[in-house]
């Protein structure tokens, strides 16, 4: 009894180490975002003179003002990304869950063959070059909205995760509905899909994040400015801030001196803002998804 009340040395050491190390790592994880935020709010002349720092001396909104004075590009990029994310996530969830349902049906004779067909692609892939040539030269999808919607659509890994989730739904549901004369697609749509809501939410968030954060397919296949998605737009501006000025001038605006460094930081905030605000509310679904995925299907 007494031992539990006494302050134990080993526990004390562990606590000290745990609290300080975890604090250190956690601060390190957020600090860069604070630096970006403060950089976006610093007067350009101060950045040029003294560099980025955590607490600016001269607070200024000039970078945001510039971005929102010429908002055509950023709004269009937002439009591209938001529409891709919404449309892509809905379609992706539909196709993923539909195929997962089929390959986990125990009365489907070829379920193992098809499962392997999907699984094999996680072991071996053709790599970038044939894929690139297929998309550009054969499917002629370069510089189309379709390429951005289509390529992240189906991730085999999510099919396998969904499949292992659906296994926990009693097969009797399908069987009794079949006896009542319901078709396979109706059973899937009316009975199975509503039971999959937790898994759909989790996988849907992963898919949505993939669409929101995609820049790779834009890098490979997009050169038309009208089709720039948010991340790729940011990538382009970081590479060449003056591009902003050129666009603004083309639209007939008199452009003042460009707060270039501030704009890079402000644009980063504009691009990541929605995620930083949303992620605290959705992260528990991600945690759930990761732990489902970790269980071998």
């Amino acid at each position: 009894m007494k031992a539990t009340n006494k302050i134990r040395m080993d526990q004390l050491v562990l606590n000290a180490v745990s609290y300080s190390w975890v604090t250190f790592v956690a601060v390190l994880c957020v600090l860069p975002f604070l630096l970006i935020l403060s950089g976006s709010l610093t007067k350009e002349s101060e950045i040029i003179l003294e560099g980025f720092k955590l607490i600016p001396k001269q607070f200024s909104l000039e970078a945001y003002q510039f971005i929102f004075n010429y908002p055509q590009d950023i709004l269009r990029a937002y439009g591209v990304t938001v529409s891709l994310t919404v449309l892509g996530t809905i379609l992706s969830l539909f196709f993923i869950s539909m195929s997962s349902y089929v390959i986990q049906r125990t009365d489907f004779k070829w379920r193992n063959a098809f499962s392997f067909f999907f699984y094999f692609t996680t072991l071996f892939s053709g790599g970038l070059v044939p894929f690139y040539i297929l998309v550009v030269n054969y499917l002629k999808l370069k510089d189309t909205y379709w390429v951005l919607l289509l390529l992240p659509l189906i991730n085999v890994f999510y099919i396998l995760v969904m499949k292992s989730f659906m296994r926990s739904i009693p097969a009797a549901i399908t069987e009794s509905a079949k006896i009542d004369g319901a078709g396979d697609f109706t059973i899937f749509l009316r009975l199975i899909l509503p039971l999959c809501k937790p898994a759909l939410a989790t996988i849907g968030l992963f898919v949505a994040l993939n669409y929101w954060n995609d820049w790779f397919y834009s890098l490979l296949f997009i050169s038309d400015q009208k089709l720039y998605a948010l991340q790729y737009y940011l990538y382009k501006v970081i590479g060449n801030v003056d591009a902003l000025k050129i666009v603004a001038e083309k639209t007939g605006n008199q452009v003042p001196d460009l707060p270039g460094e501030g704009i890079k930081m402000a644009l980063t905030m504009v691009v990541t803002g929605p995620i930083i605000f949303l992620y605290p509310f959705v992260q528990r679904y991600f945690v759930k998804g990761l732990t489902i995925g970790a269980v071998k299907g």
Partner: protein
Amino acid sequence: MKTPFIHDLIRYKTLLLMLLPALLFVLLFQYTPMLGLVLAFKEYTYAKGIIGSDWVGINNFKFFFISGNAWMVTRNTVLYNAAFIAINLVLQVGVAIMLSEIRSRWFKKVSQSLMFLPFFISWVVVGTIAYNLLNYEHGTVNSLFRAAGIDPVNFYGTPGVWPFLLVFFNAWKAVGYGAVFYLAAITSIDQEMFEAAETDGANVFQRIWYITLPSLKPTMMILTLLAVGQIFRGDFGLFFNLVGGNGLLFNATDVIDTFVYRSLVENNEIGMSAAIDFFQSVLCLVTILIVNGIVRRTDKDSALF
């Protein structure tokens, strides 16, 4: 008269139709490129297409290996991935154990959320973060150096610092995400074991060493094996967004994936980049088969297939 196969086709027609979109997608975007790997042995011209282009034997491979780049990018890829695997393992397991020992629920929740933030951010944004920190003229690190009277460092012109920086950013992005797996495994440990250890007079470090760590072994094995299976694949997002086209750094930072990208998209050397692709895909497959074979022998339950 119907053969059994036709009979099955009719019986399963709805299920097969439901499977069709995903099937076609995977067939088109995953399996067709596998056949396209024959490009490694051809001289591709747009007009003749993949099938019609002329065979050139192993010329494409010769070019890649003689140039000396083969050894450099393969070495970089493997060494970086090895460092990532080791450091991520230690860091993530460490953080997970510490989090599990922390009693304050509020502190646990907040710190875990903060550590999870980098996972949600694209590599492009990580690129701007690196720019903010490391830029020679205005970078935060260099402003601190100047303020402290230390000479500023031209990070983007100093290859030697990049192994450390890349390992840092990789660990930074993965720590919160990776710790989730281990934390889940710790929560599923039978609490009675800890209580029994307590009664037997074990101190906290003995408890961690003899109960927590051995219980985490299966999770560590699986995650490490999955990573080792990908040891010949460089993380394109990380290397491309942090280093980009900065040729000064390539010796220390170029991995197979960035090299293939540049050869293909910027230099249009399709034959050679297909050869590297082929080389990489085969190495990956062989690694996975070897790793899985070893695991099957020692611990059948941890094997991937």
